[in-house]
């Protein structure tokens, strides 16, 4: 078997991150997809490694078959031709809390070493320097999806801090600290994809480890850009580049108007 030719796109590009995210979906059944880069990743995965992947959106759409790129999770193109559109009460209660989602895609402003997320507040709680969008469905996705993948557009100690300014969506580690009986079924964050590296958290109560370092960067550079003394996975390797076909699909078939590709 020959290896498909790799693309030379920059590791910080949306194409690179989307292709790395898409690869995480190999063998998965049902993914809770968000807007932006996850939209590209799930579409690419369906066209390459996982044609049967079922796309679920918090707006209530299950089994989406969009004919055009969705601008948002409530886009009409997600509804037309979908396998089901259900109420949000059924979506969050039965589909998500009921345990039918194996992967959730989340974004965040901050991720800590245990994979807890801040999407609410930067700075002081009472007088925030930045008010972020808040919980949305992330606080539900984190405990109830089998695992969560986070895509970060920055890799620096601000985005990967020693300590979160606010915890919106907690890792199972924080839940255990509150009450061991309340530990959720989900693994929490399994993978964080950044412009520098892929961090993985193989243990449900463990820490994120540097698992893949993007081409042209060193483990030391990734450590230096992380807000805590992050450990390195024993089998750390270089992140595989997207294939030329991945990049062609993203640019010429998936996001032809460059809505998310920037």
């Amino acid at each position, binding site marked *: 078997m020959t290896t498909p030719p790799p693309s030379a796109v920059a590791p910080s590009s949306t194409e690179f991150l989307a292709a790395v995210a898409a690869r995480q979906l190999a063998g998965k059944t049902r993914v809770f997809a968000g807007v932006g880069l996850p939209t590209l990743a799930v579409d690419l995965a369906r066209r390459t490694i996982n044609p049967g992947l079922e796309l679920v959106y918090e*707006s209530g759409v299950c089994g989406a078959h969009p004919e055009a790129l969705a601008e948002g999770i409530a886009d009409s193109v997600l509804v037309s031709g979908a396998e089901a559109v259900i109420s949000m009460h059924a979506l969050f209660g039965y589909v998500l809390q009921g345990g039918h989602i194996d992967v959730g895609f989340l974004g965040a402003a901050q991720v800590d070493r245990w994979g807890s997320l801040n999407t609410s507040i930067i700075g002081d709680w009472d007088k925030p320097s930045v008010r972020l969008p808040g919980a949305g469905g992330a*606080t539900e996705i984190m405990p109830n999806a089998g695992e969560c993948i986070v895509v970060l557009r920055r890799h620096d100690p601000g985005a990967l801090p020693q300590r979160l300014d606010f915890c919106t969506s907690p890792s199972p580690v924080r839940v255990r600290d509150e009450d061991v009986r309340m530990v959720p079924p989900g693994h929490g964050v399994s993978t964080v994809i950044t412009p520098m590296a892929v961090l993985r958290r193989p243990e449900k109560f463990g820490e994120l480890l540097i698992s893949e370092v993007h081409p042209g960067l060193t483990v030391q550079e990734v450590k230096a850009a992380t807000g805590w003394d992050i450990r390195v996975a024993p089998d750390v390797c270089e992140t595989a580049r997207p294939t030329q076909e991945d990049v062609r699909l993203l640019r010429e078939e998936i996001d032809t108007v460059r809505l998310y590709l920037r």
Partner: protein
Amino acid sequence: MAETSKVTDLASAVAAHVADGMVIAMEGFGHLIPFAAAHEIIRQGRRELTLCRMTPDLLADQLIAAGCARRLVASFFASGSAGSLHEVRRRIERADPRPLEVEEYSHYGMVCRYQAGAARLPFFPLRSYAGSDLPKLNAQIRKVGDPYGGPDIYVVPALRPDVTVVHAQRADRCGNVQMWGILGAQQEAAYAARTVIVTVEEIVDAEVIRSDPNRTVIPGHAVTAVAHCPGGAHPSYSQGYYDRDNAFYREWTPISRDRAAVLAWLSQWVYEVPDRQAYLERLGEQRWTGLRVADRPSQPVNYGRRASPVLEHS
């Protein structure tokens, strides 16, 4: 059911049912957002409202900028794909020009609040919030013991709005409301409220509604007033009628950054137009045509009827 018409015009419905200081839910999750009703509330100068909306969207930015709401109960403080709501942010981050009270939940937390309200339950349990800082930010999110011996669980209180306002594709004169596409939490929010105002793209004959009863999301018994309001969800969309005006959402971000620009926008698009029809005329034929959707009809289903004629007893 008696043939009592609930049809009225939107201005009369708002005048009759929305008063200063009320708790008002205006739902629609990215779809069927009741913009026409929000603009009518702004025109009528309501004050001190508590606005409940899972995703505040531009609608909240506009209502708050116009001085209608002092409190926002919500679960996501941005406008979907198109960035920040700067009027909301200015008030939260800098109390500029006035503070905004915020009561924050997660999406399912808000859905559960409406469900409890609709079913007249005191609260609703959900498997969220353990380990999160959200309960520290919002003391209404509380933990209770499981009386059946399971682990503790977080609960959210029932939400009982004074008024719920929704937009839908169609209703009959009795207020039987049919929607399709993304349904959000509209059914729960409607049953949770004391009064329900619905704006619709079309008012149709009862026979149309009764040809497909499963599509009725809010039965007439839960509806107070119905107003015919085509285009009432713009710049959001009505599945099968017109698409989301994504360009408008992108245009809002720079407007929203500048309070003077927001006020100028409100003058031009809300205060200076008497109703939604005038708003659509100002929007122009060309822009509206650009939002047209192609047909993709569902296959009709057969509800059937008793095959052997049933004798009518008189």
